[in-house]
């Protein structure tokens, strides 16, 4: 690529708190170029390039150096982060992934569907009479947390404890990590102790829950070590909680924009699966997936240097007019796959669970919460990084 084209490529300031992945600036940049320069590396904007770079083996998962970037080089958080599956590569990653995969098998999810449905209905019962609720705290959060409790085989009443630790660990993803470190590490310690008790219990009394499956996981005579087990359990709790909570809130936001599609979902609950895919295509909680170049290489004429951070913009790719035609949001349309679960070696491990639990919840919500509208002032995380509602007051007609 010529120097002119390089300097002509658009610039997006991803670090600006008012930056939005859904802004006109991103749309215009996507028309001008497949990539943009940013305040921190590159942003990739179009479907085909995001799809290819997501799986390109010259790139590693991009968040591994996050603690070090924020001045945290040692201690429990740095250890947890660097040993977690998300941040491992190559043989270390593959060994751990293979030991963990069977616990997430799609074969094991079917039996949980009635529990997901019962949970969704119980939570809706809690506010249905009122005709209004804070969807974030009264549905999305307890649903996400209690699904995790079901998976772990712990009493569902314990969800608040798990959710509080998980929220505190979430502070580690903010730029104030260093100031919040004591709180993050206290939460990590709490979750580790909880995980240790669970592991010890399942070693003695194995069941068919997911912790037992991880404890018993074996391949070629190898097992997960105790440290791997506790690190992984904390990652799974943390990774499954906020993402599902946020994605459910974002789903409701999208459906409020397209009320005909909400009515359609209520009439045709079998569209629940399509609803999850379509929402994650146009309004994903993970607004970008990061990668880091392992070597110098050229891609479509662009020189990419080793160490460059590359943001793969999932919503921009998912709404790219080069691959998406027709109505902007349509549960009955045939669509290309979205990137809401990332892709490649680091493709979300829990996606079968997430797809199943959300595809059960959404049609039940559509049937019982008719014509939902915003009822007050909703507050949202920035439309960048991992996004979602903080407070989502809605009113609805009872169905």
């Amino acid at each position, binding site marked *: 690529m010529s120097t002119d084209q390089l300097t002509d490529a658009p610039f997006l300031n991803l670090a600006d708190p008012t930056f939005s992945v859904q802004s006109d600036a991103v749309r215009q940049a996507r028309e001008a170029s497949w990539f943009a320069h940013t305040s921190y590396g590159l942003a990739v904007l179009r479907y085909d390039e995001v*799809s*290819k770079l997501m*799986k*390109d*083996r010259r790139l590693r998962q991009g968040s591994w150096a996050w603690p070090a970037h924020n001045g945290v080089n040692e201690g429990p958080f740095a250890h947890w982060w660097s040993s977690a599956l998300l941040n491992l590569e190559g043989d270390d990653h*593959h060994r751990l*992934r*293979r030991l963990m*995969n*069977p616990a*997430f*098998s*799609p*074969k094991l999810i079917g039996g949980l569907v009635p529990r997901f449905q019962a949970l969704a209905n119980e939570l809706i019962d809690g506010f249905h009479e009122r005709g209004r609720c804070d969807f974030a705290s009264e549905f999305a959060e307890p649903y996400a947390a209690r699904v995790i409790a079901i998976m772990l085989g712990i009493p569902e009443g314990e969800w608040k404890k798990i959710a509080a630790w998980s929220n505190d660990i979430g502070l580690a993803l903010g730029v104030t990590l260093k100031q919040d470190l004591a709180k993050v590490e206290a939460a990590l310690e709490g979750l580790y102790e909880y995980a240790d008790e669970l592991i010890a219990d399942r070693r003695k009394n194995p069941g068919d829950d997911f912790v037992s499956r991880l404890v018993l996981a074996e391949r070629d005579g190898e097992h997960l070590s105790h440290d791997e087990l506790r690190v992984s359990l904390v990652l799974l709790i943390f990774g499954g909680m906020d993402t599902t909570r946020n994605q459910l809130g974002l789903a409701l936001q999208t459906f409020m924009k397209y009320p005909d599609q909400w009515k359609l979902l209520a009439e045709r609950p079998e569209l629940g699966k399509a609803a999850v895919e379509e929402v994650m295509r146009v309004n994903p909680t993970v607004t970008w997936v990061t990668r880091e170049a392992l070597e110098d290489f050229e891609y479509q004429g662009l020189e990419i240097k080793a160490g460059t951070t590359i943001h793969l913009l999932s919503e921009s790719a998912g709404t790219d007019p080069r691959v998406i035609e027709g109505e902007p949001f349509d549960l009955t349309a045939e669509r290309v*796959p979205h990137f809401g*679960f990332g*892709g*490649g*070696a680091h*493709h979300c491990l829990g*996606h079968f669970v997430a797809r199943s639990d959300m595809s059960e919840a959404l049609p039940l919500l559509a049937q019982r919460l008719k014509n939902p509208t915003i009822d007050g002032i909703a507050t949202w995380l920035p439309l960048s990084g991992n996004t979602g509602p903080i407070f989502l007051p809605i009113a609805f007609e009872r169905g």
Partner: protein
Amino acid sequence: MDVRVDYGMCQDHGQCAIAAPKVFQMDDDGKLVYDKHPDDSQRDEVEEAADVCPVQAIFLDES
């Protein structure tokens, strides 16, 4: 055993190549290549690959 990958569904995530590297590999362009008739000794690995495929595009022993 007989293995078939639906290339219309395959997204080249490469999870199968992690699960059963002797049967599934990613080529230099990141595209999946695989052995359509692997030895029966690979059955556990191939079943695991089919199970973990994010788009469920791997099919075994169809007749």
